[in-house]
């Protein structure tokens, strides 16, 4: 079976798409045509340049509406999703007490030169995020939050020292793909230290998806809007699964 969908404006299947971009072409009829042709190369139909603005220096900004012609088959989409059960803090704490019998140890950091601690703090600090308490508040967790700009080496050393069950990494700055090298660097280091199998490795940040994290060798990735309890539930569930094995 296949369920192919197209973008929707006001009629099913109309394919309506809005685009904007700048071309290094001085404003004018040729620029408009260049913008149109660019859209045709995107397999778009009937591109309408609805605005054309002179940015100066021979650059022109365009706003275009057009129709997408190639739909997406929903049945062919399989996204790996984090399977975090919807447990409350109380449930998680009880589960840790009953089934693990000791607090879960987690170490978290913003690695490399990343100084954006707000996202990591949202997960780890008492206060938590949007009314959902952070891991420090859990009876079942012990948390070491190393803060910002932590070199991978320092993070791994700390994880080793406290015998961490899980290592949590936040990556916000993604320019020049610096997050990718930070993340793969960490995986390599953990493997070199023979620790990779002993810890759950979790990443988070506005441009992190579970799919990307798994691809880079992490156990899970969490994106925008993540709540601490989702992360806690994922960790506890994963540890329980490992216990059973």
């Amino acid at each position: 079976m296949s369920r192919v969908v197209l973008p929707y404006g006001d009629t099913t299947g109309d394919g309506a798409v809005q685009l904007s971009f700048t071309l290094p072409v001085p404003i004018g009829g040729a620029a408009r045509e260049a913008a149109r042709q660019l859209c045709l190369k995107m397999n778009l139909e009937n591109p309408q340049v609805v605005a054309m603005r002179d940015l100066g220096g021979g650059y022109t900004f365009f706003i275009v509406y057009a129709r997408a012609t190639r739909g997406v088959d929903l049945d062919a989409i399989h996204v790996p999703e984090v399977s975090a059960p919807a447990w409350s803090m109380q449930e998680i704490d009880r589960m840790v007490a009953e089934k693990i019998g000791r607090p879960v140890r987690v170490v978290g950091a913003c690695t490399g030169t990343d100084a954006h601690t707000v996202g990591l703090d949202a997960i780890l600090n008492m206060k938590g995020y949007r009314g959902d308490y952070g891991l420090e508040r859990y009876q079942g967790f012990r948390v070491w939050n190393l803060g910002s700009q932590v070199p991978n080496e320092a993070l791994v050393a700390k994880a080793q020292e406290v015998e961490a069950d899980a290592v949590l990494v936040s990556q916000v700055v993604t320019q020049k793909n610096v997050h990718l090298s930070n993340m793969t660097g960490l995986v390599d280091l953990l493997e070199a230290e023979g620790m990779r199998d002993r810890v759950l490795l979790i990443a988070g940040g506005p441009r992190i998806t579970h799919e990307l994290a798994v691809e880079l060798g992490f156990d899970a990735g969490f994106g925008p809007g993540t709540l601490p309890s989702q992360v806690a539930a994922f960790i506890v569930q994963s540890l329980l699964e490992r216990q059973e094995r």
Partner: protein
Amino acid sequence: MSLTLNIDPARVARARELAGRIVDQVQPFIERHTTTAIERAVVRLFGVEGKGPDEVPLANLVVEALQDGGGLARGAAFWMANACAQTGRTPQQVAEAVAAGDLDLMRLPLLPEAEIRAGAERLARGAVDRIRENRRTRDALINRYGERPAPWLYLIVATGNIYEDVVQAQNAARQGADVIAVIRSTAQSLLDYVPEGATTEGFAGTYATQENFRIMRRALDEVSEELGRYVRLTNYASGLCMPEIAALGALERLDMMLSDSMYGILFRDINPQRTLIDQHFARMIQAEAGIIINTGEDNYLTTADAYEAAHTVLASQFINEQFAHRSGMPDGQIGLGHAFEMDPSLEDGLLYEMADALLSRVCFPNAPLKYMPPTRHMTGDIFFGHVMNALFNLTSVATGQQIHLVGILTEAIHTPYLHDRFLAIENARYLFNNARHFREEFQIVPGGRIERRANEVLARTLGLLEEIAARGLFQAIADGVFAGIRRPADGGKGLDGVLEKDAGYLNPFYDLCLKGGGEA
């Protein structure tokens, strides 16, 4: 306390008095006449629905037969009541017989006049009862859910297909819309009949039909229930069928209607006499139905310059208020239109917009003003347009507007897409909430730019009203006083539908609705 202007009440009273005089000059003419559209409205109010041969609506067939036979000046009610009494049939059956050619209303023997009058009144009372029942239903629902805080978010749907409209309307309501306007198919105002049934093909809008009204009303009642708030429905009455569509709106519980002769005259070239006569009846029915009318002064500013022509808007609002009063409409139903249409490159434009919006507020303290967003200066630059709409949203909440037509960033491009509406609502809700008590927190500096602007607009309004009072409304319209568009009194479409009432003219709705026939 709330943001207000220091305006001399005597000058406002003077403007109102002049407008009253202007309207009184044409009111006798209006009351002396009827139109084919009014008579068709009567037929529809009597319960006639559906089409005859050649897709022509039954109401048209009945009225045309009377017009051809020379009997229309006595009023359709007269002939219909007589026929019902004589044949023992319902109005619907009578109309169907006329359509089939089985019955000639004017060939039937006539009952004594008093009996006909009594029969007509009975038929009319049925309609009025249904209209009042609708009104009670609306009141009950609003009571149940609670009234929405102003400004109300007014959103348009315009797919051309009533069933797609339903999808868009319900989603708009879920996204926060308080009022849904179903945009009509382009130029329906020029049709001298109201199409029948559910329709799925329209240009840039969906035909206004009784069945479409019903479908959308049901859909909105459904979503109102889901959301726990009453979502209002509105459509357009203006045009050659104003009284008929007003009647259908009353019968199908529309909550608001765009209903303004001035719009038809100026922007659709409808004959001024015809549509002013039509309007008097239409608004009377709307008054009865508790329908808030929306007037079209905002449109002037899409053609004339908003900074220069603000006084034409205000003058027209005063006149429109008087016309509405003559139809028995209370202030609370007179949704006078105005707009945020100044050139965005104007220095202090925001302050002048605030001045104008406050001035309308001050002049019509009890009217549910309808405030229209920037349209004219919207371009394909959706980013800039979205910001213009933010200032419009701010001005609306800051000056206490009631009906807020949500500005859409793609105004210059297409009728709104699903997400255009979402983004627009989010913009408006952000502003309304983030500047909720702006009105209570700021005062206007006395003698400053805002106050000076408002006083100047009022002065020019008084001048214009004086001039119209001197010239007469028909002449003023012919001279292009509004929006710079000239419309002679005997030009335009629909004059052939105007006729002087016969001495024995019968139309029970005037009595029931206007002369103490209000809510029992």
